[in-house]
């Protein structure tokens, strides 16, 4: 099958809509690569999305996220659902390459026809990660999955944004990640709908849970108090508690109208991201942009212009082309 332009044919769309997993895999690549015609493709499937429930799973490296995701996917599949998994790992900023190892912890899912796993590299463009992950999740949603699990390492703002764009966000920590949690408290705690202390058979799990509880009490009350769940993912302990908590959170959102408002702010954020993204694209494509950028950089560095003047000039030049 030819890669370039493949997603634009009606034959391809038919295969995708008929549930051909090869077509799904190719569609995801097209979205990630921004291959020719991917926007038309997304437009054609957009109306079919919106049925899947999106669950974000995030936390510090080594917290056991992949193992948890593996168990969750298995649980949902056993309940008769079709499950898509997006596992995001960082791209090396130096080489552009990535080593994606989340499947190692998901080997037990091999051969399960209800589950589809896709590893994704962050690829480094600012704001691009949330856009790409959102579009991949949308593609899975339109393909017909009931649940889409999105796993990211909760280290940077864009990873947090991804997790936060889910319907329910699960934050996973381990007893050892005390310091890491201190550092990430602001971002991580604010987005958590469900908190999981994984590796709970280790020393320090109880104090960790207590500390989290105290932190959560400082969180503004909005009708939902994130539960703290103890789990040992490698033994499958606590998994039912997590799925129960996700279900409870979902019911809460549905009853309170929170789901609609969450999805609305997701769409709004998406529009703003696309706008910013489009603007960067126009910049990159603008005539003489690179030369002008280089020239203005030198002007600022040598003290002839302030960054504000230089960027205003850049903006003026670029808007001429819009």
């Amino acid at each position, binding site marked *: *099958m030819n890669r370039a332009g493949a997603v634009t044919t009606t034959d391809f769309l038919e295969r995708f809509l008929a549930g051909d997993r*090869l077509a799904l895999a*190719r569609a995801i690549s097209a979205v*990630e*690569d*921004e291959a020719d015609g991917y926007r038309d493709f997304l437009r054609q499937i957009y109306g079919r999305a919106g049925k899947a429930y999106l669950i974000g799973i995030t936390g510090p490296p080594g917290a056991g996220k992949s193992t948890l995701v593996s168990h969750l996917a298995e649980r949902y599949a056993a309940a008769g659902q079709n499950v898509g998994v997006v596992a995001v790992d960082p791209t090396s900023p130096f080489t552009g390459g*990535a*080593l994606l190892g989340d499947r190692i912890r998901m080997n037990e899912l091999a051969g399960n026809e209800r589950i589809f796993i896709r590893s994704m590299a962050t690829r480094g463009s600012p704001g691009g990660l949330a856009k790409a992950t959102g579009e991949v999740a949308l593609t899975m949603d339109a393909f017909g999955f009931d649940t889409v699990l999105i796993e990211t390492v909760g280290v940077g703002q864009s990873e947090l944004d991804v997790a936060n764009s889910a319907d329910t966000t699960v934050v996973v920590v381990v007893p050892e990640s005390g310091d890491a949690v201190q550092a990430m408290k602001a971002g991580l705690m604010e987005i958590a709908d469900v908190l999981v202390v994984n590796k709970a058979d280790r020393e320090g799990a109880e104090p960790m849970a207590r500390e989290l509880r105290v932190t959560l009490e400082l969180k503004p009350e909005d009708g939902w108090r994130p539960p703290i769940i103890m789990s040992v993912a490698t033994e499958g302990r606590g998994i039912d508690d997590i799925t129960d908590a996700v279900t409870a959170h979902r019911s809460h959102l549905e009853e309170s109208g929170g789901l609609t408002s969450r999805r609305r702010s997701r769409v709004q954020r998406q529009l703003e991201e696309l706008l910013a993204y489009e603007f960067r694209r126009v910049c990159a494509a603008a005539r003489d942009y690179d030369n002008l950028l280089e020239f203005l950089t030198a002007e600022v560095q040598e003290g002839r212009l302030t960054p504000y003047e230089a960027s205003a000039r850049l903006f003026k030049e670029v808007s001429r082309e819009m």
Partner: protein
Amino acid sequence: MPEKRIRVLVAKPGLDGHDRGAKVVARALRDAGMEVIYTGLHQTPEAIVEAALQEDVDVVGLSILSGAHMTMFPRVLELLRQKGAEHVVVTGGGILPDNDIAELQKIGVGRLFTPGAATDEIVKYIREAAASDN
């Protein structure tokens, strides 16, 4: 802006637990700017092919040091063809006798590498192989 990246699945089928070679190659490919999906030890051909399809890779690299190469390579190739993914290049490395290499290449397996192969050489080959898949 995004562009097409070369995606490679590195897998270890069969029972041997020697994954150093696979890991060294995986890292070299990553450092060459590719996206490498590493699946770990003890993979069945069925699981490898399913992962290759879901991940939409250009290339599958198998590392085999157990002597099972004459069953594993043909099986992976056959399953890929069955599933309509014959565009995926199958390559790999391990302790492979010359005669076996010749025979495997005859049925459609790509270049195979034996102990001592330079990672540069592997990177170069995979770039070429992925380009021919278009």
